[in-house]
């Protein structure tokens, strides 16, 4: 598979980040670490917001989020994703869509 730099793609997008108020949160970090074998959010998220750390921890940075909802929908076994839309006017601002 080709190596792709998703940050380069996201760089083209326009965002209004709601600093200090992430709209998505991992409910319980221990669940990702101890109970989730697949950690599919780390490769399914189209903005690569979820990262698998070396120690089996999963970290989330929502700045590049495209608000698709996939991470919430795939986390069915553990429902460990608290997912809301950003505050009005914030988040991704598509110029073309």
């Amino acid at each position: 598979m080709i190596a792709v730099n998703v940050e380069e793609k996201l760089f083209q997008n326009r965002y209004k980040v709601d600093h200090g108020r992430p709209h998505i949160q991992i409910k319980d970090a221990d669940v990702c670490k101890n109970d989730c074998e697949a950690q599919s959010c780390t490769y399914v998220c189209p903005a690569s917001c979820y990262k698998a750390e070396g120690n089996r921890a999963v970290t989330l940075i929502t700045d590049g989020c495209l608000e698709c909802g996939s991470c919430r929908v795939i986390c069915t076994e553990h429902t460990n994703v608290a997912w809301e839309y950003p505050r009005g006017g914030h988040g991704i601002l598509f110029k073309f869509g």
Partner: protein
Amino acid sequence: MAEKFDAIVVGAGPSGNTAAYTLAKAGLKVLQIERGEYPGSKNVQGAILYADALEKVIPDFRDDAPLERHVIEQRIWVLDDNSFVGTHYRSDDYNKPPYNRYTIIRAQFDKWFSSKVREAGALLICETTVEELLMDGDRCIGVRCDRKGGEVHADVVILADGVNSTLARKAGFHGELKAGNVALAVKEILFMPEEVIQQRFNINEEEGVVIEMMGTLTEGMVGTGFLYTNKDSLTIGVGCMLSDFKANPLKTTPYALLEKLKKHPSIAPLIEGGEMKEYCAHLIPEGGFHAVPKVYGEGWMIVGDSGGFVNAAHREGSNLAMTTGRLAAETVIAAKAAGKPMTARTLKAYKDSLDDSFVMKDLHKYRELPQVLHDSPHFFTTYPTLVSRAAKTFFTVDGVDKKTKQREILGSFRSARRWRGLVGDAFKLWRAFR
């Protein structure tokens, strides 16, 4: 906001805009709430606009709607790793006004549509996220937004909030989406001069081509790729069932899949030199007939993607969104005229008119398709390879006689997938499309 409205519409996509437009036009007092900076700033589509659904509400939309190109040619390509076998359908009939379908850019189109809604008299508030529905028992009486004093009341709330509908879930109208019922699509917009597009796709000014692709590019996942011509840009994207992304043993990311598509030897020359200006992702509710939830109740209705109204087989969504938005609005208008309260009993008329329309008829027709595709991954692995190998064997001139070649092709199909599997797949597909 102590005011009370006849109707609140959540969302300014095609379904919400059609509903709000129709209601306002009939003189109802309508509030529309959109979380984006402007209508369209949160929305993603391929995008093909089917004229018919819009024409039913705004007959003269062609006069000033931002349309890119009218589609005169549709290509369907089956790709393996380095070739394609395809059909092209081009007809001059598609080149005569009134045109049947157009490519559009959603951020621009939604903004335009919204301007019509406001002209019709609806009040639009942007940059405002509805956080939850206000309920009085099982009756919806309004919404609460993320603004100070953001409680607003209305006789009926129309949920046009798209595929993720956080509101319907929180209110308990239906459960969480299933990963097997939604596709995750990613796409990019690539800018290039108009003349280059016209030359490459063999079209004139304002004429457009769309290419739908399936094949090994999705690595056995149920999904398709697409490439559409806009005025001075191309849209390229790929979408697969979310459950398949999750289960893919290669753990392929959506953006890697898109990159692979862009590098395909049959695609790369078409997009070469295009300047990438945006990268988007969005879910598409593709569960079809069996995945449509209850779409009305005490003081509430659901329209568009929020209700799963997408015909995946024909890649139609925005037209179903507009049609459901219109039918919901017409139900409210009729109830209001008759002096009826917005109860589930009254609003059931919406479901009846849906059942009567092409929306539910089409979804019903294809009700088994999602399952068939899910059960036969060969449509996305074995068959594309076989088809292209067959074409290659057939078209390569190498001194081997044609009869031997034909036998070879048949043999390759038979050994790759035993007869029973082949015939079974074909039969199931035919039944699902029938």
